[in-house]
Each structure stands twice: as structure tokens, then as C-alpha cells.
């Protein structure tokens, strides 16, 4: 079951009603059953994987916290991390490593005895594994107490709004909310419904309309000229933002309606004037997770190297982020590019700040605009690797962009008109939220007439322009 399926439109109101009708102290059990049912509808057998990961996380965290001996404690912690990572490694990377080894050996006329192994990737495994890992690390670092109730650990790891693509939540934020009996809160439910509606607009109208065009180019790179590939490459970051951003808003909205506060995942990323700022606004739950559990320990380890220690930590963290996104050289290139962009910014940070101060550039709108445009160009350039999926295709795309100009591929004119209008609406809303947050309110306007008109307009746009026969969310593959 996915958020854009008809089944979900029946499932969620039913769960919402059941949840609030359940006696407060048992509500987490309703959520656990609903989450298992939600996941069973995708692939029944993988529900055992989630429950297995939950049991491992629960048992080993308790053992770690009860162990006094530091060496034993550390050994148990490493065992916990390895056990939680094993399924992710097996399903996501084993096939790729096996195939690479077989190909390398075949080049030297050696036979690799294992046949090609292809497993279906359990949807959301990267996300719930990261949540379980975060719980294990926080308990080990004594940032949180271990949870004694296995059902509460299970519901945290399998919470259905977040299970497929995040936001990647932390046990420190979620467990107290599961433990404490919530009361129905009208404002939270309304807020949640608004987010869900805007999330559907972003996904069904913006992302999937853009997707029609981007797919038509990127799925047939050899047949298209450089101009069309360049145009699709400019559009792809917007498609991904609307796709994962839309998914995140639906996930956060559903959680709000159930009374839960969830961390945001995006914050108007295309108005960031630098790459460092961009990564504070894009896929925020993943980046804060990587910052806390990978970048900070690494930069701490290399702190005596001063700024170069930061550079090493940045490069490794984003390399890992690339490999997390996919077991291919294209994602390695994508991750390294982010690390390189951020490292250059970190190295130039002091000089840049002094330059801005000397010329009083901080508040100049042209300087801000230039920063926003350069940041977008850098990000969009790196996304060519991510969208292409393989290094060969990405390099072909780049070669064509620089050497094969031509007439822009139009395809269906209605598609271009629809995605242009819907993208402008999305960016206009982000622009207002970024620069005029107190003005031009739509969903939160004082007048109920404006609120009703805004909601109606979005519903009409979804029904008229939305793509209802589309595939899944992009991030389900990760």
C-alpha cells in the first residue's frame, strides 16, 4: 500500500478513527497492528524482517545498557550495529558485490561459482534500518534510556507513515510520544490534513507531471540532443523535491493527525544561497542523521587536522550517502561531488565571509540571487549522475549537453504547460514562505472563505492535472 493508492484513502481514515477510539494506554498497539497491516500489503514476508530488526534493537540495547564492563559493552554495541546492518547489506549490496567479483574474475578467466543473485529490495529497509541504528547508538551513548517494552520499539521502527521513505526519526523524539497517551487535538488534525493535501499536490501534480518529461528524456539518452537533456537535467531536481518533499508532507501530515510531531524533511531548498545551506534544507532528516552518527564522530577523530579534518569527514560522509543511495559508481560520483562542493566552501569560508563583510554583500539581493542560482547549478549538475543511474549514461548525457545542441524535445505540449504552471505554483508558495512568511497566507488565512477557496483550488488542481496512473515514489528504491 502506498500513499497514492486508493486503498490508502480508505486505510488511513479507518486507522485514524480506530486510533482515537482505542483506550489511550493501548493506542500504540493499534498503531503497531496498523503498521504491520500496511507493510504486509506491500510484501507480506518482509514484515518478519521489520519485526526481527525490532527484536534485535530491543534486546541488544537493553543488554548494552545493563552491561557494566566497558569492553563487553562495546563488543555488544558492535554486535548490535552489525546485526542491524546485515539485512541492509545483504539485500542492497550483496548482489552488486557478487556480480562485480564475478565480472573481475571472469576477466582473468576465473569462474565465480555463485550464480547471479537478485533479491527484491524490501521497501523502506534503508529508512527503518537507520532509525533502528540511531536507537542503538543513542542508548550506547547514554543519550536516551533503553525501552523495556518491545512493542514500543517495534512501533517506533515500523510506524507506517514513516516506514517507506522517512523522515528518518529519532527514538529520543518518538518513544516519549508513543509512551504518552495522546488526546485528539483538532488543530493538529487540521494541520495534518493541510500538509497531506499539499503533499498530494506536490507528488501527483508537480512531481509526476515533471516525471513524464524527465523520464521521456533520461530513459532514451542516445536518441535525444544536448538541449533536451540539459532541460530535463534542470527539471529533475524539482521533480525529486516534489516527489520526496510531497511524500514527506503526507507522512508528516498523517503523523500530525495521529497526534505526533515529526521532524521536517525539506525547507524551501531552492532558495539556499550556498551548498552548506542547501544541505541544511534538503532531505534534512537524512543529513542530520549522517551529521550526528557519521560526520561528527569522524570530524572529532580528525579534529587535530583542523580544516582538513573537516574536509576528510565531509568527503567520507557524502561518499557514504552516495553508496547508501545506490551500489553503483554513478552514486559514488554523486556523493563525492557533494563532498567536494562542501569541502571547497569550507576551505573558502573565512575568505568568503571577509569578502562579504568588506563589500557589504550580505543583504544585497543580487548577491543572494547569484548564490541561489550557483547553488542550484551545482546541485543539478551532480543530480545528472543520480538520475542517470550509471556512470556511462551520465557521461554520455554530459557529452551531449556540451557537444550536441539542437531543437528542444516537446513531446506532448499539454505536459509542458501543466508542469510549468504547477511548478510555478509550488515555487511561488516556497518564495512567499521564504521571504514573506507573514503575508499571502492561503491555508492559514484568517478568513475562512480564503481558506476554503485555497483548499478547493488545490483539490481541483489535483483532480484536473494530477497523474493517477503513475509509478511509485522515487525514494522507495533506496
Amino acid at each position, binding site marked *: 500500500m502506498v500513499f497514492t493508492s486508493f486503498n490508502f484513502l480508505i486505510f488511513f481514515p479507518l486507522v485514524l478513527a480506530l486510533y482515537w477510539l482505542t483506550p489511550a494506554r493501548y493506542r500504540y498497539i493499534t498503531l503497531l497492528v496498523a503498521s504491520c497491516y500496511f507493510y504486509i500489503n506491500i510484501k507480506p514476508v518482509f514484515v518478519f524482517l521489520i519485526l526481527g530488526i525490532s527484536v534485535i534493537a530491543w534486546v541488544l540495547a537493553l543488554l548494552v545498557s545493563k552491561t557494566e564492563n566497558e569492553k563487553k559493552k562495546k563488543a555488544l554495541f558492535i554486535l548490535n550495529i552489525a546485526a542491524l546492518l546485515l539485512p541492509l547489506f545483504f539485500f542492497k549490496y550483496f548482489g552488486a558485490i557478487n556480480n562485480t567479483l564475478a565480472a573481475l574474475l571472469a576477466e582473468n578467466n576465473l569462474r565465480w561459482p555463485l550464480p547471479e543473485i537478485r533479491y527484491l529490495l524490501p521497501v523502506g529497509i534503508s529508512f527503518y534500518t537507520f532509525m533502528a541504528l540511531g536507537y542503538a547508538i543513542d542508548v550506547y551513548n547514554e543519550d536516551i534510556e533503553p525501552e523495556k517494552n518491545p512493542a514500543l520499539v517495534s512501533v517506533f521502527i515500523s510506524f507506517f507513515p514513516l516506514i517507506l521513505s522517512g523522515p528518518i526519526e529519532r527514538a529520543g523524539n518518538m518513544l516519549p510520544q508513543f509512551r504518552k497517551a495522546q488526546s485528539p487535538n483538532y488543530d493538529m488534525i487540521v494541520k495534518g490534513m493541510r500538509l497531506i493535501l499539499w503533499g498530494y499536490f506536490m507528488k501527483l501534480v508537480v512531481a509526476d507531471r515533471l516525471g513524464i518529461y524527465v523520464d521521456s528524456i533520461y530513459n532514451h539518452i542516445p536518441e535525444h540532443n544536448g538541449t533536451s537533456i540539459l532541460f530535463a537535467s534542470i527539471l529533475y531536481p524539482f521533480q525529486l523535491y516534489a516527489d520526496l518533499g510531497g511524500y514527506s508532507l503526507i507522512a508528516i501530515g498523517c503523523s500530525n493527525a495521529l497526534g505526533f510531531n515529526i521532524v521536517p524533511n525539506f525547507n524551501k531548498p531552492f532558495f539556499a544561497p550556498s551548498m552548506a545551506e542547501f544541505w541544511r534544507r534538503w532531505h534534512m532528516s537524512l543529513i542530520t542523521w549522517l551529521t550526528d552518527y557519521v560526520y*561528527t564522530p569522524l570530524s*572529532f577523530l580528525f579534529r587535530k587536522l583542523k580544516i582538513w579534518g573537516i574536509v576528510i569527514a565531509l568527503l567520507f560522509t557524502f561518499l557514504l550517502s552516495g553508496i547508501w543511495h545506490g551500489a553503483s559508481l554513478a552514486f559514488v560520483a554523486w556523493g563525492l561531488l557533494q563532498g567536494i562542493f562542501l569541502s571547497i566552501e569550507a576551505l573558502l569560508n573565512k575568505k568568503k565571509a571577509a569578502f562579504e563583510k568588506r563589500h557589504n554583500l550580505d543583504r544585497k539581493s543580487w548577491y543572494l540571487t547569484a548564490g541561489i542560482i550557483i547553488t542550484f547549478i551545482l546541485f543539478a549538475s551532480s543530480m545528472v549522475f543520480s538520475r542517470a543511474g550509471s556512470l556511462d549514461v551520465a557521461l554520455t548525457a554530459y557529452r551531449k549537453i556540451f557537444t550536441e545542441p539542437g531543437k528542444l524535445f516537446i513531446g506532448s505540449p499539454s505536459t509542458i504547460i501543466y508542469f510549468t504552471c504547477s511548478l510555478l505554483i509550488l515555487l511561488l508558495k516556497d518564495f512567499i514562505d521564504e521571504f514573506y512568511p507573514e503575508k499571502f497566507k492561503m491555508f492559514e488565512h484568517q478568513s475562512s472563505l480564503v481558506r476554503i477557496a485555497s483548499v478547493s483550488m488545490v483539490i481541483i488542481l489535483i483532480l484536473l492535472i494530477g497523474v493517477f496512473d503513475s509509478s511509485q515514489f522515487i525514494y522507495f528504491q533506496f
Partner: protein
Amino acid sequence: MEEKDVHDKLETSFRKVFNNNSLAIERSMTANDIEKWDSLTHMLLISEIEDSFEIRFKLKELNKMKNVGDMIDMIITKL
């Protein structure tokens, strides 16, 4: 070393890392209150404090320092 001395010496480290000679720190200050105090400059600050006070932090202790006041208290325990 008195808390006042720790405060003053810490302020010098902040001024050096954030390149701002007029920066005045207070116990309640967090990363939100000081321009450019982010995950990149934080580790430069930690390293600068370690060198300046000739102390060593543990990774676990970093999470416990939520504001400047926590930092001062942590430094005092190590002197």
C-alpha cells in the same frame, strides 16, 4: 581557574574561530545565537578549546554540551 577566567579564555577561542573580535559570549547562548556556528565550525571550536585549555574531550561529552554554559561547566571539570 575561576569561572570568570574560563569564560574569558573561552571567549577568546570563540572570537578566533568565528573571526569576530567583538563577539561576547553568555552562558545561555547556543549555535542559533552565533553567526556561522554550525557543524563545520563546531569541531574547529572544540579543537581550539582543547588546545587553549590543554584538555581533551570525549565524543560522548560533545552531545552533553547544549550551550555555552554547559561548555564552561565541562571545561571546569577537566581543569
